[in-house]
């Protein structure tokens, strides 16, 4: 159990939701918190990126994106044939699990802070890079030839959807400005990060509480999937990170990245590209089940895995 205090705010939100408290985070505040988190993470990544010769990352990047692409390709048949779910739903859920969660990732970074562990900062870049193949594969699986895909609209949704755009934008600004240039912004974007993350988790809890119910309707299979899938993805990440010679922290973060499921970028993109998929299923699984699993149990487990494999 991870006693990182920020996750207690998630509990606070869930409880408020379940007890039908009138607590609400206004929509515009939620928007502002996500803009803040996305920009802050992006800036952080950009600053880190500026420290490395980008060339060196191309190879690692390619490997990570290719391995990441395995996730939706494994998830789809499981959902379709074992779970007996519709093609559209299977594809949409696969896309959610192929892409990543900025907040889960942030909780992971927070834990590393506590553990005083270093990590390869440029890993943040994969918050952006892993979205694209996941969503594209998801759509292809859903369409599978038949039906027309509005690729233009989809690609626009993916690249210029606010979450990816802000992450990428932050990366570029952080990269161009560098640690020195960003310093005047540290007090807002870095010093306040954990506090804002706590508030965001409070809102996530409020929303998750409404999703857990939705999930219940869809039985144990999906619930099981929402726990087993991240464990599988995390293992992929552990092995990949270890083979690429990442530090313990980096290996752990890559696992967390793979294990996390999207509930911001993917839902919006899938709602447009695969409208016949039921969003309650994908969001219910990723937000109602996988997200809490990851921040409470998954993350400590992944850290243990990373430490163990490096102890070999």
């Amino acid at each position, binding site marked *: 159990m991870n006693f990182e205090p920020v996750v207690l705010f998630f509990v606070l939100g869930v409880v408020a939701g379940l007890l039908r408290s009138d607590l*609400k985070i206004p929509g515009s505040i939620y*928007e502002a918190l996500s803009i803040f988190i996305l920009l802050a993470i992006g800036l952080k990544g950009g600053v880190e990126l500026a420290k490395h010769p980008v060339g060196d990352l191309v190879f690692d990047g390619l490997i990570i994106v290719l391995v990441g692409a395995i996730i939706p390709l494994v998830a789809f048949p499981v959902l379709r044939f074992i779970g007996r779910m519709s093609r559209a739903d299977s594809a949409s859920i696969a896309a959610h699990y192929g892409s990543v969660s900025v907040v889960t990732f942030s909780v992971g970074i927070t834990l590393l802070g506590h553990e005083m562990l270093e990590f390869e900062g440029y890993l943040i870049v994969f918050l952006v890079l892993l979205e694209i193949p996941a969503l594209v594969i998801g759509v292809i699986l859903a369409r599978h030839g038949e039906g027309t895909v509005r690729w233009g609209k989809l690609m626009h949704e993916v690249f210029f959807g606010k979450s990816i755009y802000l992450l990428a934008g932050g990366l570029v600004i952080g990269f161009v400005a560098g640690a020195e240039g960003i310093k005047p912004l540290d007090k807002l974007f870095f010093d306040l990060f954990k506090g804002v993350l706590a508030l965001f988790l409070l809102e996530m809890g409020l*929303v998750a509480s409404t999703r857990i119910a939705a999930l219940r309707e869809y039985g144990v299979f999906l619930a099981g999937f929402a726990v087993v899938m991240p464990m599988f993805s995390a293992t992929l990440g552990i092995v990949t990170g270890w083979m690429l010679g990442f530090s313990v922290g980096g290996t752990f973060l890559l696992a967390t990245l793979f294990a996390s499921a999207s509930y911001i970028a993917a839902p919006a993109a899938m709602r*447009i590209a695969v*409208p*016949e998929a039921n969003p*309650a299923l994908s969001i219910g699984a990723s937000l109602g089940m996988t997200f809490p699993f990851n921040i409470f149990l998954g993350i400590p487990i992944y850290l243990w895995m990373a430490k163990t494999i490096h102890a070999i």
Partner: protein
Amino acid sequence: MSSQSLLLLTILSEAVLEDILIEEIMALGAKGYTISEARGRGTHGVRTGKWTAGGNIRIEVIGDAELCSSIVQRLQAKYERDYGLLMFTCPVELQN
């Protein structure tokens, strides 16, 4: 005061469709539209607007019966199956 009889078409749908629906509506020849935020419940369940793409929007278009029915038909054909969508018209007197 010279008033003109027209229809007010109110469309309640998912916020995520905003840009797409506006495109359709203008393409069908509407002179304008008004949008406001909403939340609610219907056959697609509660839409609290809590979640980013989880809210509703209300799109209102004032136009003649012909425009309204063409919009209704287009939206019904393309979006009714997969999205929360409610449309209704009410006769209004345009005052300016």
